[in-house]
């Protein structure tokens, strides 16, 4: 094995390949991966690829470029695993998975919450159908959450706009988490382990908040102050 190859680790998964990169500069990593594919086209062609990029911070243009380069080699990039929230968000925006069925050991890192108030993800746009945002803290959206979009947060979820998608606050079981929205009409609502179906909810658009009181999920009007 030469240097090139030691940059990259490849494992077979039940439904494709898992390629793990290390922390070398991104351009080097990408070209090493593509070179390796071009040397063994028959091994890679038609493969479904999950990519573990470690702590690399990738933006949309870099991920799109890699995905298109892979696609030209007939390789489908379907998941990007990363320790960086920026990279995860990029992947989610592009509709890529950020988890594969076998949980990574790192995931348990977030298991015990002990959240500080600073751990919040701000999303300054509308989340459209097919977007899934998962965050080990609070999530604040300045925009709408459309039907078909989903937010899973270990902490609370605040929507400064219309909530029409699916939300799960306190996803690790934190019963003090809340969901608030200026126009509250989620398709699916969960706080910790309590779920509620809002199909019958005919309340007019208004700011409301969901939280757990006496082990039951309740919705009350929300007066942001």
């Amino acid at each position, binding site marked *: 094995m030469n240097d090139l190859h030691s940059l990259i680790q490849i494992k077979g998964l039940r439904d494709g390949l898992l390629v793990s990169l290390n922390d070398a500069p991104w351009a080097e990593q990408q070209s090493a991966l593509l070179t390796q594919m071009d040397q063994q086209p028959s091994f890679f062609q038609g493969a479904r690829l999950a990519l573990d990029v470690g702590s690399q911070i990738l933006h*949309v*243009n870099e991920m*799109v470029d890699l995905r*298109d380069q892979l*696609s*030209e080699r*007939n390789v489908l990039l379907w998941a990007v695993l990363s320790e960086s929230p920026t990279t995860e968000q990029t992947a989610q*925006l*592009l*509709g890529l998975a950020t988890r594969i069925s076998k949980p990574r050991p790192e995931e348990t890192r977030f298991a015990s919450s002990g959240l500080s108030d600073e751990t919040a993800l701000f999303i300054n*746009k*509308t*989340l*459209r*159908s*097919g*977007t899934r945002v998962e965050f080990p803290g609070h999530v604040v959206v300045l925009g*709408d959450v*459309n*039907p*078909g979009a989903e937010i899973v947060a270990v902490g609370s979820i605040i929507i400064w706009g219309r909530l*029409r998608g699916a939300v799960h606050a306190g996803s690790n079981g934190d019963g003090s988490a809340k969901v608030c929205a200026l126009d509250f009409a989620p398709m699916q609502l969960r706080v910790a382990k309590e779920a509620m179906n809002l199909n019958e909810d005919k309340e007019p658009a208004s700011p409301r908040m969901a939280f757990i009181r006496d082990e039951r999920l309740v919705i009350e009007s929300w007066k942001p102050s």
Partner: protein
Amino acid sequence: MTAQVVTISSGKGGVGKTTAVANIAFALAASGSKVVCIDGDIGLRNLDVVMGLENRIVYDIVDVIEGRCKLRQAMIRDKHLPELYLIPAAQTRDKNAVSPSDMKRVCDEIRPEADFVLIDSPAGIERGFRNAIAPADRVLVITNPEVSAVRDADRVIGILEAEEKHSPALIINRLNPDLVKQHDMLSAEDVLDLLGIKLIGIVPEDESVIVGSNRGVPVSQDPKSRAGQAFRNIAHRLKGEEVPFLDLDKQAGLWDRIQKMAGRR
């Protein structure tokens, strides 16, 4: 000349992408623009049928990409409009025969010689869709006033935004004012409200569209057709002209509001 490359996409199949490409192309060419259409639906070609050019095909886009013919040889000229061309899709190949950079290369070759390149995108958000949007300067997202079509349009808009493509514009196709009045169909307002992008046209449900497609003469050629008028208006708006939206429903009020909403953002 440097052509504007416009791709029409939807996510969901059967909402009117091919119909819209053919109609807008005819309207643009009839008003003096030089237009090249590309059928991006490799393996399921049908733009040639709707444009009435199916029996003139010799070469297709895969022949161009793989170097079996010159670009010119694959450009089929329309029977009546000398400034309208079609580059057909390959029928016997699959979408993997084309890559995003192939599409960019073909469009770059056409750009200096045309005013508009219109690309018909396949359904879905996979490879064929990527190919169709890769060279686009502008994307028109088309939907029907139905929950599932709107959901798919939303997904496509999300992908276009993530890829930082110039913000897409919306065509609402097959609107039926009677059904909207009976609350059996989403209104144009409902659709716009959810998708929150700029509106470029509302096309009514009109059976002359289907008749026109079957005869290979798109309805934008028929001065009396309401749908034809709507497609001609889209063509004008693509050229940067201000055209008021059609009053499909004679009630005032609603349409005033839509005119306003179309101008927002």
